């Protein structure tokens, strides 16, 4: 039964990771760059929810909606300010400029809220639900349901709607898409909006799950997200979802059965193995290391 309990915990962690990784992978698929401030978008999402719930006395639903709007605008602003005009400069330029954004955001939030961990307000009445010997808390259920719902909606949007088809077309080939009349700029902006919304939601979920948030939380989760998109294949949406869950499970099990201090080493170790033996990722189709 302890085993099943750990599966639930792993699912909860993995869902959050998957939401972060999806943002990275969508943006990478489109522009072939790593958005290094994506973890900070998550951090600001968490702080937005904290302000809405703690200072404005909103409920969880309001916090989610508010966070989604704030992070969507933030993500689009980051794109316009630090990526749009430096895209052409090879790998290094967008990397450096988005790291610049990350540093500024970390520092501003450290000045505003101090660098220490602060408590995330209780939003849900924590009740335990017994189900066949496994105990779910309402927190776990809410997190898993919200995260899975986001993933299903994203999948449907990408497969079934016009904007989703446009995103996939631009990911396939930006120049051809432009020639075919797809408004590439608007598609990129929309993608940043979607990716940042997911990160914002993930930030709220992290706050609910761990009860505390801090300005540098984005670095750690951001690095995990990057490891996950390597494991799942860069640019691969389903890969990001599945390997997010996989990494979440792996970390929870390594904490439960091996040692809590080496959970990060397992994740990054798996990433390095994947890089060496299957650089296209677990779910990638072809070797594409020359990105």
């Amino acid at each position: 039964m302890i085993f099943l309990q750990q599966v639930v915990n792993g699912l909860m962690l993995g869902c959050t990771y998957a939401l972060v990784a999806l943002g990275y992978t969508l943006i990478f698929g489109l522009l072939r760059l790593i958005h290094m401030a994506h973890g900070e978008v998550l951090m600001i999402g968490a702080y937005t929810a904290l302000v809405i719930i703690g200072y404005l006395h909103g409920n969880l639903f309001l916090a989610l909606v508010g966070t989604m709007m704030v992070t969507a605008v933030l993500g689009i602003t980051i794109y316009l300010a630090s990526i749009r005009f430096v895209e052409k400069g090879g790998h290094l330029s967008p990397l450096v400029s988005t790291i610049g954004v990350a540093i500024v955001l970390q520092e501003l939030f450290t000045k505003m809220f101090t660098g220490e961990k602060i408590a995330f307000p209780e939003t849900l009445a924590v009740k335990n639900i017994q189900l066949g010997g496994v105990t779910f808390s309402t927190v776990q259920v809410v997190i898993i349901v919200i995260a899975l719902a986001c993933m299903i909606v994203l999948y449907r949007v990408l497969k079934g709607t016009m904007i989703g088809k446009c995103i996939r077309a631009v990911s396939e080939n930006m120049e051809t898409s432009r020639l075919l009349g797809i408004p590439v700029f608007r598609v990129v902006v929309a993608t940043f909006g979607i990716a940042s919304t997911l990160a914002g939601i993930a930030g709220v979920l992290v706050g609910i799950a761990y009860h505390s948030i801090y300005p540098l939380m984005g670095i750690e989760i951001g690095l995990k997200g990057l490891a996950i998109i390597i494991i799942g294949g860069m640019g691969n949406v389903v890969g990001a979802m599945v390997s997010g869950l996989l990494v979440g499970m792996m970390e929870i099990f390594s904490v439960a059965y091996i040692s809590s201090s080496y959970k990060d080493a397992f994740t990054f170790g798996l990433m390095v193995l994947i890089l060496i033996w299957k650089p296209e990722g677990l779910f990638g189709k072809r070797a594409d290391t020359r990105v």
Partner: protein
Amino acid sequence: MIDAYTESILIFVGINILLAYSFYIPMATNQISGGQGAFMGIGAYVSAALTVNFHVPFALALAASGLVAGAIGAVVGFPALRIRGLYLVIMTLGFAEVVRVFFMTNEYFGGAYGFSGIDELTNLPYVYGVLALVLVLLFRLERSHIGRAFQAIKENDLAGETLGINVTRYKVIAFALGAMAAGLGGALYAHYALFIDSNNFGFHRSIEMVIFAVFGGINALWGPLVGATILTVIPEFLRVIQEWRMVFYGLMMILLMAFRPQGLLTKHMFRREKPQGETEP
């Protein structure tokens, strides 16, 4: 005699120049590393353990830390044939995180409490002696066959490979040399700060090295030196910048990438006429 304050600035200038080159050297073969802080940490911890626990002379400990960091750099850089571009960035970021966690949890190196009780052995002659050695090595390297191979790989590694350049070998050499510079910088840092803990060598440290090198110019040999010097000295004179140092760095990185992505110095800046293609002797 110079006062202690000026001395400390000069020492940090020297260390930061070394660190800036540790990012520059792998970059000379088109390898972007986001984890040079890890090699600095390895150098710092190795040298501190040697001088404190084994009473090894500082010069030997310095050499050892450079060699250990360089050897680990070679191992990390070895998969370079398959891992390039953004994949390498993510791999090095992950590697740095693993190293940080290792030093944070390893009891021998002080764990979460950090490593204290290090003697103050770093002084100006050591810092600038090491720096001079590294610079001489670099300048000689650039004019040697290795430097030309680096340049060919940087321009286009596939073309280099077809011309018979052993790309993997030179990439590993570059990565190991970069790690070595970081290791030396770390050893000098440890014996000046006198207390080190794993958070000194995390994400922010790695990024600081990137900023120094990129600001100065990653295509010019003098670039990292100029970048590290300016960015270390300026905050000392402007208290406002000191307090908002990271915000200042961040904004500068965004603006720099938008308006002058090549950095302050460029390769052919000081030549009278523009070169017609590359004509190295």
